[in-house]
C-alpha cells in the first residue's frame, strides 16, 4: 500500500479535566460529574496531534476523530477537528448506558468503525485519566487482529510497516508493525498544539456523523459491575523539621535509615 494512502482514525475521550479535583458521590456510586469541567483526555490529545502531523507530512490522507458517549462528546470531537482532524464520528451512547461502558465495548465499537471506514492506522491515547484502564488500544488491536504499538514515544512510516519506539519500564524499545496497526500514545510522543481561533471557526463547518452502537452490531451489556466508589484512605500530614540534623534524627528514630 502506498504510504500516502494511509487513512487514520483517532479516538478522543471526554473526561473530567485533569486539573479538577474529583469528588466521590456521597452514595458511593461514582464521582461527581455534573457541573464539572470536562476536556479531552490528555493522551487522546497527543494521539490527535500525531495523526495531524502525519497528515501534514502527507503520510496520511484523512484523519477521522471518534468519540463514544453522550451528546457532549461532540464538543470533544470539535476540539479534535480544530486541531486538524478532517471529520468526526460520534457514537451516541445514552447517559444510562455510558455509566457502565468500559473499554471492552468501546474497543468493539472502534474495531467495527475501523473496518467500516477502511482505516489502516488507529491512533489512541495509552490510557484515559478517569478510569486509568489502559486497555482500549490493545483490545481494539485484538478485535481487528492488528499489531499494536502501545505507549509510543516515536512513530515513523516505513513502507507497509510502522516503526514504533515504545516506553517500557527500563527504558525504550523499538518494534516494527505491519500495517494496518494500532498505536497508543505516551507522554513524550509529541506536544499537542493549541487550536487557533481561525481553526476553531473552521472546525465548526466540519462534519460530525452520528452513529449508534446497534448500527455497528455492538452489544453494550456490562461485563464488569462497579459495586462502589470510595475515597482512598487519607494520609495525614506529619511534622515539619527545621534542619537537616532534625530530619536525619527523625529518620534514624523511625528506623528508616
Amino acid at each position, binding site marked *: 500500500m502506498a504510504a500516502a494512502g494511509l487513512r487514520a482514525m483517532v479516538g478522543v475521550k471526554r473526561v*473530567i479535566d485533569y486539573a479538577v479535583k*474529583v469528588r466521590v458521590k456521597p452514595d458511593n456510586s461514582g*464521582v461527581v460529574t455534573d457541573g464539572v469541567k470536562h476536556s479531552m483526555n490528555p493522551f487522546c490529545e497527543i494521539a490527535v496531534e500525531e495523526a495531524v502531523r502525519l497528515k501534514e507530512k502527507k503520510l496520511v490522507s484523512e484523519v477521522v476523530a471518534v468519540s463514544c458517549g453522550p451528546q457532549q462528546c461532540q464538543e470533544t470531537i470539535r476540539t479534535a477537528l480544530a486541531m486538524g482532524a478532517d471529520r468526526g464520528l460520534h457514537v451516541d451512547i445514552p447517559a444510562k448506558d455510558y455509566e457502565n461502558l*468500559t*473499554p*471492552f465495548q468501546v*474497543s468493539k465499537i472502534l474495531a467495527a468503525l475501523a473496518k467500516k471506514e477502511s482505516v489502516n492506522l488507529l491512533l489512541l491515547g495509552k*490510557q484515559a*485519566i*478517569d478510569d*486509568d*484502564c*489502559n*486497555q482500549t488500544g*490493545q*483490545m*481494539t*488491536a*485484538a478485535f481487528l487482529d492488528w*499489531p*499494536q504499538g*502501545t505507549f509510543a*514515544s516515536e512513530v515513523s512510516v516505513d513502507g507497509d510497516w510502522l516503526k514504533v519506539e*515504545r516506553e*517500557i*519500564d*527500563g*527504558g*525504550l*524499545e*523499538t*518494534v*516494527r*508493525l*505491519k500495517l494496518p496497526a494500532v498505536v497508543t500514545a505516551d*507522554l*513524550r510522543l509529541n506536544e499537542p498544539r493549541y487550536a487557533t481561533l481561525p481553526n476553531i471557526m473552521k472546525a465548526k463547518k466540519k462534519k460530525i456523523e452520528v452513529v449508534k452502537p446497534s448500527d455497528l452490531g455492538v452489544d453494550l451489556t*456490562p*461485563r*464488569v*459491575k*462497579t*459495586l462502589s*466508589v*470510595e*475515597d*482512598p484512605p487519607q*494520609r495525614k*500530614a*506529619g*511534622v*515539619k*523539621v*527545621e534542619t*537537616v540534623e532534625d*530530619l*536525619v534524627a527523625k*529518620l534514624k528514630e523511625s528506623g*528508616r*535509615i
Partner: protein
Amino acid sequence: VLLHRFQSTLVIAEHANEALTPITLNTITAAKRLGGEVSCLVAGTNCEKVAQELSKVQGVSKVLFAQHDAFKGLLAEELTPLILETQKQFSYTHICAGASAFGKNLLPRVAAKLDVAPISDITEIKSPDTFVRTIYAGNALCTVKCDEKIKVFSVRGTSFEAAPVSGGSATVEKISAPAPVGQSEWIEQKLTKSDRPELTSAKVVVSGGRGLKSGENFKLLYELADQLHAAVGASRAAVDAGFVPNDMQVGQTGKIVAPELYIAVGISGAIQHLAGMKDSKTIVAINKDPEAPIFQVADYGLVADLFKVVPELTAALKK
C-alpha cells in the same frame, strides 16, 4: 471453600530470559490469594532457567514454559496465541500478570481474544470475582465485580508482598509454541543503565521535580541516592521539562512505587504524582514553598532551598 477447589490461576511470568522480573513474585501472591492452584507460564527465546527459578517459588504448583525465536522481546502479538492455547488446554478460571509495561500491553489483548473484559491494576482481591482498583489517579477506590467466565487482570506490584523464592517444588513442563504470527517484529531495546536499585522494587526512592531546574542538577539526587542505596525517580513535570527520561517518572502515568522511604525533592505534589507514591511507608518532602501540597502527605517536611539542604543531607549521611 468448595468453590475454591475448582479455581485455577495462570500467572504470565515477566522476565528478561536470564532473570525473573520481581513483579512476577507479587503477582503470584495475588494469585495465591484467590485460593485455587497457581500455575506460571514462561515464554521466551531461552527461558528454561527462569522456569526452574519459578518452580522453587512458594505456592506455585506448575510451571509451563515455551521457547521460540518469535518470543524475542515478548511481543503481545506472539505471546497471545500461546496463552490462548494454554487456556484451551487447562481451562483456568483466572489469568493474571503484573501491571508493568509488559502486563499492561499483553493482558487486554489476551482478554479481548477470550471475549472477556479485563480488569487493570488491581490493588486488592475481595473474592475470586471482586477486585479493588484505583481510578482518577488514585483519588478514588473502585470495587468491581467481574461477571466473566475467565477473569483476566493485572496486579499492582506494590499492593502485594513478593512470594518467597524458595521452598516451592512445582513441576516444570515444556510446551510447544504455536506458529509465529509475524505481524510485528522486535528491533531493539535501549535500557537506561544504572547501578542503582530498580525504581519499583527499591527500599528507598529519591525523586526530583521541576524544582531541580535542570537535568544536570539531578546529580545532587544521585549523590544522595548513593548514600541511601536508593533508586532515583522524577515527577512528570521534571520529565515534561526534559530533565530526565520518562522511565524515571513516578505517578499516575509513570511508575507506582511504595518504598519504605520516599524523599521528594523540589516536587510540588500534583495529584498525578501523589498517585504514584502515596503508599510509601515514610515520606520526606523538601521544598522551599511551605504551601506545596506535597507537605500534606509528608511525614517529615523540610521547608528549605533544596540546593542548600540536599548536599547537607548527603554529607550528614556520609558521617
